[in-house]
């Protein structure tokens, strides 16, 4: 029974958030690098998925495989002690700062 309790205290925090790519050029290499840089500031594991693939959010090569165009919805999943902070920071980067890039013009 004691073992059980110890395992529970080590249980991983899992956080998941849906984000939408809002900058006009999509998740090309520069934004992908920004994403990976932010992801690597956290200890937790980060997985990003579109409908087809689950990739490592800390790997630039894998993130470049998502081909996430403007309007694409992605799922960001973090597992580990600082998962909540990681998910918050990544959501802010994608949806609020939109990688400091222009969003499409409405015309």
């Amino acid at each position, binding site marked *: 029974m004691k073992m059980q309790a110890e395992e529970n205290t080590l249980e991983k925090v899992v956080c998941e958030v849906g984000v939408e790519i809002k900058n*006009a*050029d*999509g*998740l*090309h*290499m*520069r934004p992908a*690098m920004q994403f990976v840089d932010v992801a690597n500031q956290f200890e937790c594991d980060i997985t990003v998925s579109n409908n087809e693939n689950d990739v490592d959010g800390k790997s*630039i*090569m*894998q993130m*470049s*495989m*998502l*081909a*996430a*165009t*403007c309007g694409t919805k992605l799922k960001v999943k973090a597992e580990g002690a600082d998962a909540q902070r990681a998910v918050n920071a990544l959501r802010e980067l994608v949806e609020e700062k939109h990688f400091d890039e222009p969003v499409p013009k409405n015309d």
Partner: protein
Amino acid sequence: MKFADFVCFEAIIPELKAGDRDGVIAELVSALYKVGRLGKGNCEEIIKTVIKRENEASTGMGKGVAVPHVKHKVVKDVVATVGRSSIGIDFSSLDKQPVYSVILIISPVDNPDKHLQVMESVFKHLQEEKFRKFLRQSEKAEEIEDLLREADENPSL
């Protein structure tokens, strides 16, 4: 998207002469220019644009590969070529290791989605250790072309 849709096989360089990053970029852009894939573009100006982009952030993604790229008005569709170096080039890569395979990509300015699709295809294969190894070992242009065509048929390569 397949390699055959955007790689200009006639412009493949199986043994790059240059020993430095800027020289390699110049060789690859010139190769595309010589076979007419850069239209009326100014070769020197395009070389400078690619180098400028590379200076902003290295496209050396680690594991011996680099993917220099720019958007440029001279192309209406994405065009790419491949260069191989047996000595290894310093690209200020993420992992600080030399680069043996360089894929140069020139994309049109007004089609960001197409550019992303090309990047997806390129990285899907560059992720595979087997593909990287074969690319690095291909000594002739025909071997590189064969490898790319095989990769087009075999998603796991």
